[in-house]
């Protein structure tokens, strides 16, 4: 199929940000669609600016394009103005690399990073001329695949997706390519049904049409195989050693500004801090560090190839990487002088040690530093197992302001299990104290408090918890706003209505599929975008399907209830999660198993894996990790905690 470009180009004169649709990034690949290749269209179901930097998509794009038997191109959800033009002109969803129609690919694969993008998945299929419902597709239609963190509860999208990849995608995309390549070469024996059944036998691959959901009145009884030879429970795929997968090697360099616009080097995958609200930390275990030497190579070669002047060392808690100071120091040294490279560490731990590392790397631009205490009181932080004491936070903040930062950003969740108004107001108290510390060092010091409504996620100890209602979240945000009037701290919050819709999709079962379809048909695309989000679309769709939103969102689940994702394995024993839930309610913290004896969450033992961690001891500083006194906390120390001083100590003026 030839390029659609001549039909796309005239549309671009009339749309916002036309460069979203042109491709041409450095690192983009243009390969022939030869008959021997399985062709993949990797789709990020949100705008180009959000989707382009996605590391998962870029990794798979490279891995597939290195294979002689595969070709991969990329697509992103066209913004509403472009979609209108495309539909009027009869232009289907296209790849940005070769501008080929989505429907001509063998595989259309979606990255599922957020539940509120689900309606965009349906829209992208429809715009690509692919039948939205999987059961309606024929032998010549693309195989529709989805992966990413949201795939750990695949059920809400079960009607639309042919095959889900659960866990790390590096290996499964190769296995799927081989199965589909064989099938194509042999004239598609047995048709679509046969090849899907074969995919269902691959590790880490869940084919919903091979399973049946059985209900007991309103409750789900079980999801069971309906064809022979597929596993009762699909276990996630896990890359044992990140060193075998040094991707991306050729990170895409976008032509327009995108989020995370910098070189991104993943330094480890997985996290065992054990924060009980955090789905990412639960489903990506165990911890697998990339060898320091490989990290250095990826930084050096990546910077030289892309011309970026910033590198982010990414992970779920980057200060926990063994020898993080060494790596950071080397990058800073190697690129010292004019035009030096800045290093950023997303997901910083909250402690003074971390600020020390941060000051090492941000010698020039000290604008803002972000911490995530997540809850307002030590009691509630024990419930969620985010074991940061007030002393930790104040020492970190003291260090930050005294070393030249002018603005500190604090992330919190509200609507957490056992939360009382005292906990909510604790956020205001912390923020006020942070501003007071700041003003002792910097005139006009400010703090921003970002508050999100907590949405319980599958495969976490909080999966049984009934989410706060919209009204309750709004009441708490109101309390907080009142308590922070004239405090010097700005409050930003996530729309509680959007958290509610997210809650419907997050823990939904197959009955939520028609709801998502209704929201999409009613025009509800880009629900991640506040200007496009509309809760009415969701509640109307629930009503039309005869479903009670509160049953899905605010209801507490029982211990023996079958959860819609029980047939999907993240490695965690359900019993471990339940015990951890009970420990949460009892306000008991759980140490990090990287450095303390194994408590058998199930992942390492079940999958015969081990942590890949270079250092046998936890990093310096902070009370997190092992050996912490869990009963401590609550009061601010008389003396500021001394902070390790780096070589260039002078506060930036």
């Amino acid at each position, binding site marked *: 199929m030839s390029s659609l470009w001549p039909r796309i180009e*005239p*549309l671009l004169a*009339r749309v916002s940000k036309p*460069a979203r649709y042109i491709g041409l990034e450095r690192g983009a690949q243009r390969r022939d669609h030869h008959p021997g290749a399985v062709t993949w269209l990797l789709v990020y179901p949100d705008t180009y600016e959000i989707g382009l930097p996605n590391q998962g998509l870029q990794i798979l794009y490279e891995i597939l394009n290195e294979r002689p038997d595969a070709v991969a191109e990329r697509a992103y959800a066209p913004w509403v103005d472009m979609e209108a033009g495309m539909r*009027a002109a009869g232009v289907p969803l296209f790849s940005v690399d070769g501008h080929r129609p989505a429907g001509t690919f063998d595989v259309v694969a979606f990255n599922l990073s957020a539940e509120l993008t689900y309606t965009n998945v349906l829209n992208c299929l429809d715009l690509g001329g692919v039948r939205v419902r999987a059961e309606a597709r024929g032998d010549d239609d693309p195989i529709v695949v989805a992966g990413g963190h949201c795939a750990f509860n695949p059920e809400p999208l079960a009607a639309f997706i042919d095959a889900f990849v659960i866990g790390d995608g590096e290996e499964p995309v190769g296995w799927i390519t081989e199965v589909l390549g064989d099938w194509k070469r042999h004239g598609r024996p047995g048709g679509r049904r046969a090849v899907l059944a074969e995919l269902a036998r691959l590790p880490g691959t869940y084919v919903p049409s091979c399973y049946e959901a059985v209900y007991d009145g309103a409750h789900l009884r079980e999801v069971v195989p309906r064809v022979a030879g597929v596993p009762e429970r699909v276990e996630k795929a896990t890359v044992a050693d990140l060193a075998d997968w040094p991707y991306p090697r050729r990170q895409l360099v976008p032509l327009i500004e995108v989020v995370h616009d910098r070189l991104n080097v993943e330094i480890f995958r997985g996290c065992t801090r054990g924060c009980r609200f955090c789905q990412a930390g639960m489903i990506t275990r165990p911890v697998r560090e990339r060898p320091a030497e490989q990290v250095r190579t990826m930084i050096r070669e990546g910077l030289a190839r*892309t*011309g970026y002047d910033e590198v982010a060392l990414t992970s779920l808690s980057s200060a926990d990487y063994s020898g993080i100071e060494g790596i950071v120091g080397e990058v800073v040294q190697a690129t010292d002088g004019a035009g030096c490279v800045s290093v950023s560490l997303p997901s910083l731990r909250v402690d003074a040690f971390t600020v020390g590392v941060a000051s090492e790397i941000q010698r020039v631009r000290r604008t803002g530093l972000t911490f995530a205490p997540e809850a307002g009181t030590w009691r509630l932080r024990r419930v969620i197992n985010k074991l940061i004491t007030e002393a930790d936070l104040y020492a970190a903040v003291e260090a930050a302001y005294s070393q030249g930062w002018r603005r500190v950003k604090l992330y919190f969740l509200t609507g957490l299990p056992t939360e009382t108004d005292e906990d909510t107001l604790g956020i205001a108290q912390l923020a006020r104290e942070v501003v007071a510390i700041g003003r002792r060092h910097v005139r006009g010091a400010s703090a921003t408090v970002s508050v999100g409504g907590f949405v319980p996620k599958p495969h976490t100890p909080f999966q049984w918890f009934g989410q706060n209602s919209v009204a309750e979240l709004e009441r708490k945000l109101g309390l907080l706003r009142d308590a922070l009037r004239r405090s010097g701290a700005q409050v930003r919050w996530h729309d509680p209505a959007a958290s509610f819709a997210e809650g419907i999709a997050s823990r939904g079962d197959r009955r939520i599929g028609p709801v998502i379809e209704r929201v999409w048909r009613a025009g509800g695309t880009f629900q991640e975008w506040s200007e496009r989000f509309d809760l009415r679309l969701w509640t109307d769709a629930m009503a039309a399907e005869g479903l009670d939103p509160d049953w899905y969102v605010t209801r507490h689940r029982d211990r023996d209830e079958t959860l819609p994702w029980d047939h999907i394995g993240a490695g965690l024993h359900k019993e471990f999660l339940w015990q951890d839930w009970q420990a949460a309610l009892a306000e008991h913290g759980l140490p990090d198993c990287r450095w303390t004896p194994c408590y058998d969450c199930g992942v390492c033992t079940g999958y015969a894996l081990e942590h890949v961690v270079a250092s046998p001891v936890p990093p310096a500083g902070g009370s997190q990790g092992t050996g912490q006194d869990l009963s401590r906390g609550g009061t601010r120390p008389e003396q500021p905690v001394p902070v390790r001083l780096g070589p260039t100590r002078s506060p930036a003026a």
Partner: protein
Amino acid sequence: MKSGAHTALRLRYAKRGRIRFISHRDVARAFERALRAAGLPLAFTQGFTPRPRMGFGPALALGYESDAEYLDVALERPVELERLPVDLSAVLPTGLTVTGVAELAARAPALGESITHHCWEIEVTPAIDAFKDPAPGPAPARLLDVVGGRVDALRSRSAWEVERDRKGITTRVEVRAGLHRVEVVPGPDGAVLLTVEVGAGATSPRPAEVVAAVAADLGLRRVIRRAQWIERDGVRRDPLVADAARTPLECAS
């Protein structure tokens, strides 16, 4: 280029094809990254956020193409120019191509102040609805006559006032004196090609204003900046040549 750097280069580059849909700021960022990736010894600005010292010629509007854009870059030491256009083009995004490089004479004036003329080529087609499948059949035979007549009329005017909006304020500007030449010839696929030479200042007509005057009811397929000049003492020179310390290195795009 300001003092402090040891040497400065002037680059000429083309912006052709799909990349016409990125903005001037995007082009600047692409060059900044490419200059780093090519390993050139860039001179940086002082301050909290050091940036490479670069100076661009007049911005090219998003959607327009060009054969002749210019960029000055300060370096900490001289470099070998021979391979520079090829090496730099290799690390620029597809569609941005370096077509010449010159070592800049000391105290050469900035591009923005010295470029005096632009030459545009504008491809006009019968009216099309961009949101419909464009299938421009043969142009009406009269297209060349119609546009030709309007061009004649424009040329014969002694005054030509245009309205411009800037931050919500509308001003009227007299631009006739800035229109130096306008020609019309048959183009490819039934289109007609306008060649327009204008001055570089704010009192010269812009391509969109020429289109509005002679082809407002027609389709606009393509706008290409074909050349820019520095005119001094009645002589027009390519900016690559005008302030070069020695003979520039030129290559095809």
